[in-house]
C-alpha cells in the first residue's frame, strides 16, 4: 500500500518559483499556459495496514510534518499495489 501526496502553496501565497517557471514557458512560446504553481510530490509505503489506517496515517503525517498549514494545502490518494 502506498500514499501519493501532493502539496502546493495555498492560493494567494506568493509562489516565485511557479511564477518564474511560468515566465520561462511563456518565453518558450507556450502562450496558452498560465498560473504555474510548483509544489511537492511525496510517496510513502506502508507495512500491513488497512486502507483506512493508511489514510489516517497519511493525513496525520501531512498535518504534523509534511505540509505547513499556514501556507500549504495537501491532498493524497492511497494506492493498493
Amino acid at each position: 500500500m502506498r500514499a501519493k501526496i501532493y502539496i502546493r502553496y495555498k492560493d494567494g501565497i506568493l509562489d516565485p518559483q511557479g511564477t518564474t517557471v511560468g515566465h520561462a514557458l511563456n518565453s518558450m512560446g507556450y502562450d496558452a499556459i498560465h498560473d504555474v504553481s510548483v509544489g511537492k510530490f511525496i510517496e510513502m509505503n506502508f507495512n500491513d495496514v488497512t486502507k483506512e489506517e493508511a489514510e489516517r496515517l497519511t493525513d496525520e503525517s501531512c498535518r504534523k510534518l509534511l505540509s505547513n498549514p499556514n501556507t500549504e494545502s495537501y491532498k493524497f490518494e492511497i494506492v493498493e499495489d
Partner: protein
Amino acid sequence: MRAAIIVFPGSNCDHDAYYVIRKVLNKDVDFIWHKEGSLTNYDFILVPGGFSYGDYLRAGAIARFSPIMEEVIRCANKGISVMGICNGFQILIESGLLPGALINNKNVKFLSQNITLKVASTNSIFTQDFKKGQNLDMPIAHRQGNFFASEDVVKKLQDDDQIAFIYDENPNGSMGDIAGIFNENRNVLGMMPHPERAAESILGSSDGLAIFESVIENM
C-alpha cells in the same frame, strides 16, 4: 548567566554565536547537541543559523522534531529568553513558538548582503537598550526569509507591539517589512538578520552585539 547554543546537523552559525558570547562578552556558554533530552540551568537559549537537515522539506521543519526542541519549548514557556537567528527563526516558527511562516524570497534568490534594520519595539529584554527607530547594520543570508502570515496575525503582531525589527529596504518581500518578531510573552525573539555576524567592528559592524549584551545584562 549561562547560555546554550543548540546544534543541529547542518547548523553553521553556531560557532559564530559561541564566539560572541564566550570571547567577546566573556560569558559561559555550551553547545547542546540536538539529540540531548534536557536543558537545565540555562538562562539564554540560542537557536543558531545554518541549514539544519539540509533545509529538506521546508527550512526548520525537521529540526523542529529533534528531541531538544521539546526542552526549548518548555524553557520558552517558563519565560527563559530564547532567540532564533535565521534558520533558528525558521525552526522557532515551525515549532509553534512564533507565528507565521517564512517562505521563499520574492525574487527566488539566496540573498547574502548587508542591510539596515530599524528597531520597531524596545519592549523586550532583547531590545530595551535601543531607541525605537534606531538603525542597525548587519548581514542577511537566506533564501526563505519572506515573512508571511494572515492579515489578522500581522495586525495582531503590530497591535501588540510584537514586531522587533523591520527592514529599512525590504529585501525579500516580507509582509510589513518584518525582519524579526517576539512571542506574546516577549521572551522569544526570532529574526532573519545575523547579529552574531555583526558583533565586532572588524566585521564591518558591531550593531548586533547590543542584542546579546541586552539579554545578558538585563537578565
